[in-house]
């Protein structure tokens, strides 16, 4: 376990001590009227502080750990190349326990106590939605890496962005034609009965219909369910393909039970890798998945045609060709999502440089500069591939991968175009006041 997160622990420790000293000083003086505490960090060499709302504990902890590692790697790379506008990035981590209420508190703590410039890094959509009002009220830019269709839906506010990862609606829309053409015309969906599943439930059926296929059953599994066999009879016998997005620790049970239920005679399977992020695809019980297909944001396994940028990114983050930690082959990454942290940090860098960002007083300028972005070229800053960015809905769109599991590895068999996933925007944040 050497070297993991050391960068972070040090950074965080330093930040905390400083905070405490500040707190003591403020307490002793008791001149701590709100006006006095707001001093700007004016010096040009002072670090840009990015608050990282991390899932260190709670149900999102497996993802959170890799989000931290990717962030550390990206910050290291950015700082080594001169930082943002010549200023280094300093990351301040606060754990939100993957809890929506705590999430809002963490945003306030990062903004008001740690005096960070922006907040970044949230994954779980309930935490994003729970924190967004606070970010909007404090008028602090909030860059999430969540993939939920919440930012783009217009339900949040002008300070929330998702510029580093494609949202689920676009993902689902872009893979639907492939499913219809290759997996089958009659599809049964099995998805978790919570927010992440709803994006699939709501946007797959119309996309499939457009492609000439149909959803014949939708089975929403309640949260905390730990056994699934009893729901399998609800899968219609005419089903050609099962579309599964079971997220949570119970996914192995799900696959195992599906295998026991169908044996070798079942429908084809198409799944979202989200369920199996941080899980070794060769774990006992997952044998049934062999030969099935998965969506991947960024491929877990190194591919034959990987770009130099992709190779450099994998080396920087510290994952091997199987997508596990270089130091520990059992420590499997969340490769399909965590690239979003890397790319989001580079988007932040770009937007800050465009805005001539100097401190919290420039936050409105930063928001406008981010909204003005339109395209991110593939390269070291965007190793997953090219992205288009829609400033009105604060959402980016990129290529998606469909991989086949064979021989214990996931091999990309199809790459969607960016246009495959585009949909008519339903909102315009730029009309909101700053």
């Amino acid at each position, binding site marked *: 376990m050497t070297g993991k997160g050391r960068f972070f622990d040090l950074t965080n420790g330093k930040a905390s001590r400083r905070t405490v000293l500040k707190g003591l000083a403020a307490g002793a003086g008791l001149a701590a009227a709100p006006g006095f505490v707001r001093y700007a960090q004016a010096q040009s060499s002072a670090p840009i502080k990015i608050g990282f709302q991390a899932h260190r504990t709670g149900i999102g902890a*497996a993802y959170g750990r890799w989000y931290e590692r990717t962030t550390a790697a990206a910050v290291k790379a950015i700082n080594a190349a001169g930082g943002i506008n010549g200023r280094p990035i300093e990351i301040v981590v606060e754990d939100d326990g993957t809890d929506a209420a705590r999430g809002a508190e963490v945003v306030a703590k990062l903004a008001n106590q740690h005096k960070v410039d922006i907040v970044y890094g949230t994954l779980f959509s309930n935490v994003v939605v729970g924190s967004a009002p606070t970010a909007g009220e404090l008028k602090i830019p909030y860059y999430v890496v969540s993939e939920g269709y919440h930012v783009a839906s217009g339900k949040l506010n002008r300070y929330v962005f998702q510029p580093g990862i494609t949202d689920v609606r676009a993902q689902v829309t872009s893979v639907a034609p492939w499913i219809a053409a290759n997996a089958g015309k009659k599809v049964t969906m099995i998805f978790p009965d919570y927010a992440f599943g709803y994006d699939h439930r709501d946007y797959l059926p119309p996309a499939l219909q457009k492609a000439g296929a149909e959803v014949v059953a939708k089975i929403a599994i309640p949260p905390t369910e*730990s056994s699934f066999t009893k729901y399998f*009879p609800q899968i219609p016998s005419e089903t050609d393909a099962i579309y599964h997005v079971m997220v949570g*620790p119970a996914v*192995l*049970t799900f696959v195992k039970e599906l295998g*026991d*239920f169908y044996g070798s005679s079942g429908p084809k399977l198409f799944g979202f890798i989200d369920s199996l992020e941080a899980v070794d695809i060769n774990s006992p019980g997952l044998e049934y998945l062999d030969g099935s297909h998965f969506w991947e944001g960024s491929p877990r396994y190194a591919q034959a045609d990987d770009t130099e940028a992709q190779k450099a990114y994998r080396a920087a983050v510290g994952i091997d060709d199987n997508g596990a930690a270089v130091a520990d082959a059992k420590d499997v990454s969340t490769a399909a999502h965590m690239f979003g942290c890397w790319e989001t940090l580079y988007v932040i860098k770009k937007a800050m440089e465009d805005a001539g960002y100097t401190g919290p007083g420039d936050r409105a300028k930063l928001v406008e500069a981010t909204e003005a972005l339109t395209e991110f070229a593939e390269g070291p800053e965007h190793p997953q591939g090219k992205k288009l960015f829609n400033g009105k809905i604060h959402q980016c769109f990129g290529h998606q991968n469909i991989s086949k599991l064979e021989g214990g590895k996931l091999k990309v068999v199809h790459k969607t175009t960016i246009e495959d996933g585009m949909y008519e925007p339903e909102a315009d944040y730029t009309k909101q006041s700053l």
Partner: protein
Amino acid sequence: MAFGPHLLLATLEGLVTAAVLALTALGLSLVFGVMRIVNVAHGEFFMLGAVLAWAVATTLGAHPAIGFVAALVVAPLVVGAIALLSERLVLRRLNYDPEATIVATIGLLYIIQQLALSLYGPEARPVTPPFNYRVLLPWFGYSGYKLSIIAASGLLLVATWLVLTRTKIGLVMRATQYDREMAQAFAIPVERVYAGVFALGAMLAAFAAVLIVPISQAHYLMGQDPLLLSFIVVIIGGLGSLRGTVLAALIIGLSDGIVSMFFSPTLAKLIATLVVAMVLVFRPQGLFGTVAR
């Protein structure tokens, strides 16, 4: 699927759920019945059992069956020792005051969860079952290991029943449960009985977890649901009634399985929850008449 096979499947699933529930509730029933304390950390002992099973099986790296058997022995012993330690260091000093115990065991829950997260990690990890056998029915396949859990649960329940009714240890435990002061008057070392019961309850939870981990997985947050369900089983079954515990587990397991045939999954869970709540409301004394206070 036709109604008959569907019902068979739902019943099988219900039975497995019931077997699992009866096992996890067993330890809680003892602790709760004899010591009259609400051990909120009971689910964490269960989680520890599963995590240790993974650790033992992985460390040994031998045939899955060997790793599994080793885990069946090692995990309960380690968990029992941890429980004994926490009983000595904390619960005894609180004199088993009900409210103080709740706070203390919530503290214990946090500590165990954090240790598991820090030392074991946030991932869900599987343990290979000792054997893989798929029972092939005309309509669907079913896991042979799952069926064996029903048998194992039955065996363990019978063994516990024998210990409780046929041995001196069981007599002492029942006497303490019946009346603590009276037991003290009869020179029963109540403190040692409590320590033993607490450790035994934790060991049973760990044992159940080792049995179950091949069909679920070890995860550091897995303790909560078994805890809540076990409480329900213990209360509905009636305190200290083994018969009641088994029957309550069957009611909950089967209603969960069979209700799921007729409704969408979340609605089925909702209805099953209300059904069980109503059983409790209209039979507050439990199914076997022992008043739970």
